[in-house]
């Protein structure tokens, strides 16, 4: 893609759509499939004198790190080779965060379900919800309550969706002139500085850690 177009910001733009759609999908589905494919191996490991936490976390780290490495090799290296700037770094950062978030969510889904097909279905639903349905609902909210000052409310609602959060971090870099109009200034003030960065990072970390933690609790008690 970098060779097709001389304008790097346009390439980043296309990568963004891939990032927001494909990355969560692949990470989620791959994780679920992996979990069920190595189910027997997990059983075997649990028969050993190992703590369940260790086994679970080892699996989590293995999957997460391999997907992150895949992302860095696939998207990271080309972007870095063809020009490092703030938007490509943000792209990399949000991509990694999204990968981790969806690995966590998929693990949670996997431990909560009993069979593979169901787990994949639910993971797909989660993905579908966050990348499509949530935004549709948001748009409906915006339309329905357009008369009211919505800025702050939207800010909160958007923060609740990791995909949206990643997207906003990116458009703050890419479409800054459009955002500067209207309510954009508010978002920029909020997300554009270090505390905003810290805020969004912590929200994403919550999205990573909380599902893993719940999944771990479930896994410990689960009747394998």
């Amino acid at each position: 893609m970098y060779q097709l177009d001389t304008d790097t910001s346009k390439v980043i733009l296309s990568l963004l759509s891939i990032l927001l759609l494909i990355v969560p999908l692949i990470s989620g589905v791959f994780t679920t499939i992996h979990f069920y494919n190595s189910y027997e191996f997990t059983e075997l490991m649990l028969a050993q004198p190992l703590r369940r936490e260790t086994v679970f976390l080892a699996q989590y780290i293995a999957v997460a790190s391999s997907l992150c490495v895949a992302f860095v090799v696939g998207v990271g290296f080309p972007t870095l080779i063809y020009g490092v700037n703030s938007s490509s770094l943000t792209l990399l950062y949000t991509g990694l965060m999204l990968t981790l978030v969806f690995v966590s969510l998929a693990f949670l889904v996997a431990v909560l379900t009993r069979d593979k097909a169901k787990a994949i279905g639910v993971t797909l639903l989660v993905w579908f919800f966050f990348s499509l349905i949530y935004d549709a609902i948001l748009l409906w909210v915006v339309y329905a309550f357009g008369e009211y000052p919505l800025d702050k409310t939207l800010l909160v609602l958007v923060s609740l969706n990791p995909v949206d959060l990643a997207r906003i971090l990116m458009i703050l870099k890419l479409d800054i002139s459009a955002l500067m109009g209207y309510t954009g200034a508010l978002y920029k003030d909020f997300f554009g500085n270090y505390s905003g960065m810290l805020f969004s990072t912590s929200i994403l970390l919550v999205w990573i850690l909380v599902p893993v933690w719940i999944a771990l609790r479930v896994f410990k008690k689960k009747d394998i």
Partner: protein
Amino acid sequence: MNCLTIHRGLLLLLLSILVPLQMEANIIEVKATSGKSISGAIATAKDGDTIKVYPGIYKEANMVITKSLYILGIDHPVLDGELKHEIFTIAASDVIIEGFKIINTGRSSMEDKAAIKCLDANNIIIRNNILHHTFFGIHISNSSGIIIECNYLLTYGAHEYEHGNGIHLWKCTDAYLQGNVIEGHRDGIYFEFVTKSKIINNISRKNKRYGLHFMFSHDDEYYHNSFINNGAGVAVMYTTNVTMRYNKFEENWGSSSYGMLLKDIRDSHVEFNTFSSNTTGIYMEGTSRTLFHKNEFRENGYAVKLMASCDDNVFSKNNFKGNTFDISTNGKTILNTLEHNYWDKYQGYDRDRNGIGDVPYRPVSLFSMIVEQVPPAMILWRSFFVMILDRAEKSLPVVTPENLKDLSPKMKSYDLHS
């Protein structure tokens, strides 16, 4: 200082008026050390005399010039208004003021205090001055044949009300502004009832309100000016027959900031200009019969906001590149023409290979109309859902205006020297 040479023709004309006078003219010299004052020199001088002012700091103010004089500062002598006074007031014809550094004029919105003020004056040249921390910089009313050339006007302060305009012209004809740099004022260049004037090669930046602001100023021409990073961009109103070519409108950011705001402009030409990184490139309201030709719109939030009150405008052969939204509008009836433009978002094909896309391009996206109605919706931009909505609307327009389209979109961008 190549700007001095460019308009030599006009200068020569003026000099030819002045030179015969100067044959018998005296040269009066003023030095800070000799105790002579500039106002004293002005009082004793006769029509056609030259007053040479040597370097130094002169705390003289409210000098009223009622004779044809050439007042020349050597190496920019400083005239200090001590934040109380005005400096020069010209109420005569054939006056040249050149080479001064004027600082700290008084501030008053009641009297419009200015560094150099002209009232009912003709054939005035104001050249090569540095105006620093002035309220109004150059304030001219009811005059004709004004040349304002190569001045540097800089002021600072946080608020709009703390400043006057940089170059302020009211009811003038045949003004000629060239090579001025204006920074930090309320409006960089302000024209009201100024006709048949030329504005060339000026830079107006970081002004608190508008870089250029004119009203009722017909038959003016603007070439090669730059309007950068002004509080609200450029606003031009109630005017016919304006020509703007090769200007740059850049980095005007904010919800009510425009690269250029056109309100009730008719029969004008906007050609070869560059609009880049503005929140809105051009905002048009009540504008008609205006030609937009070979402009470059680059990385703006909205390239053009075309309100439904505009008619008979033609956009032809412009480049639209990297804008978030190309065109947005607020109505369904569109009476303007788009033709032969290059749109980087165009996804059509060119089967007969004539360089023109075979399917029309619709520059208004559904989402831009949503944002127009509910601005906070902007937060959903670039989400998958919005992408789907836009696609659906593109293939079967329901909400977006059906007839706002470019029937002959170019496949390749124009090479517009930028």
